[in-house]
């Protein structure tokens, strides 16, 4: 597909990289010459310097033949304008705008219906939703949903003395009396997809799919707490904090936000009646103790400085070992290093956005040959879960799964037929009309037939 990306900041660059990896033809527009150059040099894309909201620049980037325009400049209004101009220049184009201001939040339907936007991206809102979900299920490390929220995909680190330690994958369900499918195992930085005979060890990070009820049962049986947190301390009062607090308060979770800027505090208080807003430095030890960091059930660090977030998370873990910690990290450079320290969950806003756009692009491609409905990155970008819609008879349909010659490091995690969800066994088969969840470490699967060894 031909894609134009306007604005090449953090999110723009992450999107360019993700879409470039999927082999799309990309043109990048940015008003800053150096940015354009550096992107064009590091990736196989074309760079255009100029104002993205100008029709001249858009023509230069090839708007006439493009399939998709993504506007991610710093300004919501410019992004919307970019999309409207693109739509006039090329009626067949799909457009995505990044719109972050909470003021526009209720107006997204209007943008879509009246202004012709295909999708409105709000990275902060997406991140906040993700964090809220994590706080509701404090026992899991990362969680996402598939098949319209009917199954969940969760990560869990096996602790010492856990009933999961030193058993085979095929024995898990029998031993715990639950119905889950373990999809990936992460061990010493390696990710692989297990088969029934694979062994689980202490410190392994496993991911699995299950229905919400089974997930709860699973965690209860391995003696992990399953209740949602009662309170939380959020460091930093940016847009993510605002969206997050809104959601947490509606779930009845006590929310405290620590923010340094008094003006920002006023704005937060204006809009979040039930939250406690503290004006102060989130890295001030005294203040944190005063506000009860030792007793809180969860801490979310959302300041703009990665190092501050990491330090704060480490401190919280030290004074309050049982705390559920979520740490926002903007740059992904020292990821390997961070894996080794226990920071709880690490949030990459960029990858959340990249996931969302990639899955949108794949769904767009669906009408042009691919049929991926949803895509979720499970472990950063090392493994992904894909949702396929089976549209007709193909090589994989109508045969028991055990007879299919599947690629290695690939597992069929769930099949949705009508109202039922199956966690498939060898004798089950795929039929037209099913939705199939595939978990794999292979990249760029575009069709269900790609799961077969060629």
């Amino acid at each position, binding site marked *: 597909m031909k894609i134009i990306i306007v604005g090449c900041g953090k999110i723009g660059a992450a999107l360019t990289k993700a879409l470039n990896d999927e082999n799309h033809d990309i043109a990048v527009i940015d008003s800053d010459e150096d940015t354009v150059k550096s992107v064009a040099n590091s990736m196989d894309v074309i760079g255009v310097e100029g104002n993205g909201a100008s029709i001249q620049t858009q023509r230069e980037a090839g708007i006439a033949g493009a399939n998709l325009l993504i506007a991610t400049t710093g300004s919501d209004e410019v992004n919307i304008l970019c999309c409207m101009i693109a739509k006039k220049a090329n009626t067949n184009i799909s457009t995505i705008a990044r719109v972050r201001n909470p003021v526009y939040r209720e107006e997204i339907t209007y943008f879509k219906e009246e202004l012709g936007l295909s999708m409105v991206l709000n990275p902060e809102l997406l991140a906040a939703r993700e964090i809220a979900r994590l706080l509701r299920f404090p026992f899991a490390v990362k969680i996402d949903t598939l098949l319209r929220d009917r199954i969940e995909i969760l990560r869990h680190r096996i602790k010492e003395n856990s009933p999961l330690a030193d058993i085979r994958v095929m024995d898990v369900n029998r031993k715990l009396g639950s119905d889950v499918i373990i999809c990936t195992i992460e061990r010493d930085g390696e990710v692989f997809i297990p088969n029934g005979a694979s062994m689980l060890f202490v410190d392994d990070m496993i991911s699995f799919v299950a229905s919400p009820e089974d997930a709860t049962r699973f965690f209860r049986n391995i003696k992990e707490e399953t209740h949602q947190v009662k309170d939380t301390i959020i460091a930093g009062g940016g847009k993510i904090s605002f969206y997050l607090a809104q959601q947490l308060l509606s779930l009845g979770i006590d929310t405290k936000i620590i923010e340094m800027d008094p003006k920002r505090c*006023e704005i937060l208080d204006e809009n979040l009646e039930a939250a406690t807003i503290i*004006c102060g430095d989130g890295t001030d030890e005294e*203040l944190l103790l005063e506000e009860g960091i030792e007793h809180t059930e969860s801490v979310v660090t959302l300041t703009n400085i990665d190092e501050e977030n990491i330090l704060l998370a480490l401190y919280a873990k030290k004074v309050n070992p049982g705390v559920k910690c979520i740490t926002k990290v903007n740059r992904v450079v020292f990821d390997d290093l961070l894996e080794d320290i226990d920071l709880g969950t690490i949030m990459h806003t960029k990858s959340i956005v990249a996931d969302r756009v990639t899955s949108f692009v794949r769904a767009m491609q669906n009408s042009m040959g691919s049929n991926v409905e949803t895509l979720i990155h499970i472990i950063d970008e090392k493994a992904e879960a894909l949702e396929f819609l089976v549209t007709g008879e193909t090589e994989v349909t109508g045969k028991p799964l055990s007879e299919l010659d599947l690629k290695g490091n690939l597992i069929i995690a769930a099949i949705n037929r009508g109202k039922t969800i199956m966690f498939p066994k060898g004798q089950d088969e795929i039929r037209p009309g099913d939705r199939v969840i595939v978990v794999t470490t292979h990249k760029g699967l575009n069709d269900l037939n790609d799961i077969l060894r060629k």
Partner: protein
Amino acid sequence: MNHSSIIYILGKLLQIEALIMLLPLFVSLIYREDDFLPFLITIALTGAVGTAISFKKPGKASFYAREGFVMVALGWIVMSVMGAVPFVLNGDIPNFTDAFFETVSGFTTTGSSILSDVESLSHASQFWRSLTHWIGGMGVFVFMLAVMPMAGAQNMHLMRSESPGPEVGKLVPRLKDTAKILYRLYFALTVLMFIILLITGMDGFDAVTVTFGTAGTGGFAIRNDSIASYSSLQQIIISVFMILFGFNFNFFYFLTFGKSLFDALKMEEIRVYLLIIAGSVVVIMINARACFESLFDAFRKSLFQVASIITTTGFATADFDLWPTLSKTVLVMLMFIGACAGSTGGGFKVSRVIILFKAFQKELEHFIHPRMVRNVHMNGRALKEETVDGVKVYLGAYIIIFVVSVLIVGYENHDLITNFTAVAATMNNIGPGLSMVGPTCNFAFFSPVSKYVLMFDMLAGRLELYPMLLLFAPTTWRSK
């Protein structure tokens, strides 16, 4: 100070009053009573004075907050003086101070009376007494704004001085249209109540006067036992309408202009107001159960009295002075809370109580989290610091006026409950108090000095303190 503007507006006000007084004149004609002449004389006098002083248009048309306050305060006093004239002339209330007291009590929608036998009044007098409630309820200046061709942004000062509540805003861009909408809603609700009362079989004259008393949350009735002799159905209808007239009129505006009942009920003030009513009714039903005949009787009487007191109407169906102490205490508390801001009721106003309570809560939390940022929220948005401060200062002024009034009235040597509740009942525009000013008694026994103090309290209470305070403040009259 723009004196010519003040005089001009007062003249216009008197002209309007003269026109309004045509109504009791008609009543007098209908019932063929002999007080036709007194009303005619008053109308002629009021109209002549009004026309004379407003004949010349003011040289400088613009006026500001200070003139607005003075106009409203003086306007209400002048209007009450002229309103008292017919009572003196037709001999119903020969003493001028008493007649003045009665009219102030009427216009301020208080309902405290110096009469021991209201049934002996002529129909025209009774009608005029009740009509003053209806006019005073929504405010005569608001009426002026609605009907008279007055242009200019400065009229907002008039509206702000006369309308109750910590924040007075417009509903629509034009002040005139806002005033019209308010009066239309007021009129529609009044007519609705009148028709319902007629359907239940109430006599036409009774229905009109009771409706006026209820709509303005006044409290003058035309029977000696107030409302007690009407049927229980009628009493419940009156209770419901008292509660409705105690609503913030924005509620009805929202309802008529598209919002659903559910959305309109999201107004915090209205929810708290209804909760207070429900809570008080339950407490009184339990506490005073010995005074009632049946469960229904208990419900009917408690609801009526709670509605009557919290909306500052002051009708009575039972002699609540005989109820146990807890019930009486609850009623006295309700006197101070009052109705919603932007209603026709008086008192401290539910919204101010909410703001004070929240400010208090905020202060407490500040001790625990010294660096916390928190504003007082109302209806989901933060209030300006000025508004909250305004409420605190209002409370201060309120207490000072209250204490000084009790002190002055105290020289007469009546018991403390009488003095305390007399001031509370007049300042909150309720009507009856407890003990010697209880629902079966009246205010006639006070000395003229006390009566003038209570009149000041009524006007101060109705006009939200400041116009009356500014009228007597030297700074107001000092030029520059």
